[in-house]
């Protein structure tokens, strides 16, 4: 492992160098975490064209705030927190209309969704129907409130545990559970609304 070699500074050492104003020391940290942050940001905002700019802004914010990092939580978690907060602001500015998705779906997609309303469970869907459901869920998520979108993305797409989500969002685990339940209920309600509206 690279960290075990005495001539290669550890992550903590890079962080300390950054804290004393060495910008070059930030490059190895960016290299280590960029993939993870690209992943998270893409799943949170789902706009390919904006991801790189957002990640760049996140890293710049992180460097500007690095003197406040106190080694209490993992650096990755601290970075995730900055990323989530930055994406939250972005989502609030760019939230899509909650009503337009009815008109955006292709006819094929609409037929697929109609059949899911009659299907007993996801396992009973064919490929096309699955794609239609995925498309609809993606659209429902895009139109969900930023809070719901972030918490569902972290839990269901990024596969974080409730405790990890709580740490990233600086919330209690019980609060995360309540918010997750509320977000799930809202997604189910939106799906039903769509099915009934057809």
């Amino acid at each position, binding site marked *: 492992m690279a960290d075990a070699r005495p001539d290669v500074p550890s992550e903590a050492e890079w962080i300390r160098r950054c804290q004393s104003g060495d910008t070059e020391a*930030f490059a190895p940290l960016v290299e280590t975490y960029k993939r993870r942050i*690209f992943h998270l940001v893409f*799943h949170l905002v789902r706009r390919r064209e904006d*991801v790189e700019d957002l990640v760049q802004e996140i890293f710049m914010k992180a460097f500007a705030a690095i003197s406040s990092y106190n080694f209490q939580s993992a650096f990755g978690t601290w970075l995730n927190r900055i990323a989530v907060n930055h994406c939250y602001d972005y989502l609030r500015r760019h939230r899509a209309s909650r009503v337009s998705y009815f008109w955006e779906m292709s006819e094929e997609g609409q037929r697929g969704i109609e059949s899911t309303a009659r299907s007993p*469970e996801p396992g009973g869907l064919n490929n096309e129907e699955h794609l239609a459901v995925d498309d609809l869920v993606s659209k429902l*998520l895009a139109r969900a409130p930023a809070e719901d979108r972030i918490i569902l993305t972290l839990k269901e797409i990024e596969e974080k545990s409730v405790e990890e989500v709580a740490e990233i969002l600086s919330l209690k685990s019980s609060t995360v*559970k309540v918010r997750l*339940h509320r977000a799930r209920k809202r997604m*189910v309600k939106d*799906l039903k609304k769509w099915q009934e509206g057809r």
Partner: protein
Amino acid sequence: MRCDVVRERIGEGIELPAGIEAHLSSCSACADFVRQWELVHAGLVALRKEEPPQASLGFAERLVRQMERARAVSQIGQQFIVEAGRRVVYATLLVALMLVLGLLLPSSGPLRTPQAAESILSQPEVAAMSPDQIMGISDANSAPDVPVSGNQQRGTESK
């Protein structure tokens, strides 16, 4: 078991206890919720598979250069603010110093203070003068030793 408790547990993704299974078999609303949530969950799971875009070549180096530029700009801005602040402080100190000097330094005028006026008025030659003479508005006959201004002299000659 209450419906809201059942629905809260369903989303947790852990194995459902027997009580919940029994509730689902008797409550069609909760069974419907489960079915809908499974659809949503399947859609969310499918989103995991989407590959995010890769960072462009030289992303980290470019970022570091940009940070250095931003830092240089902010340093120039800070220097400007410090310099401007210093000048404002110097100017304020200078004005304050001038005000203090203006108040403290003695005036060169003889009537600046009541004490100075008293000392002048108590002199015998001044005490002998009428107030008009002191003010310089006297006529030539009553006070020939007091100098008369050119205008006053011309006016007397014309009479």
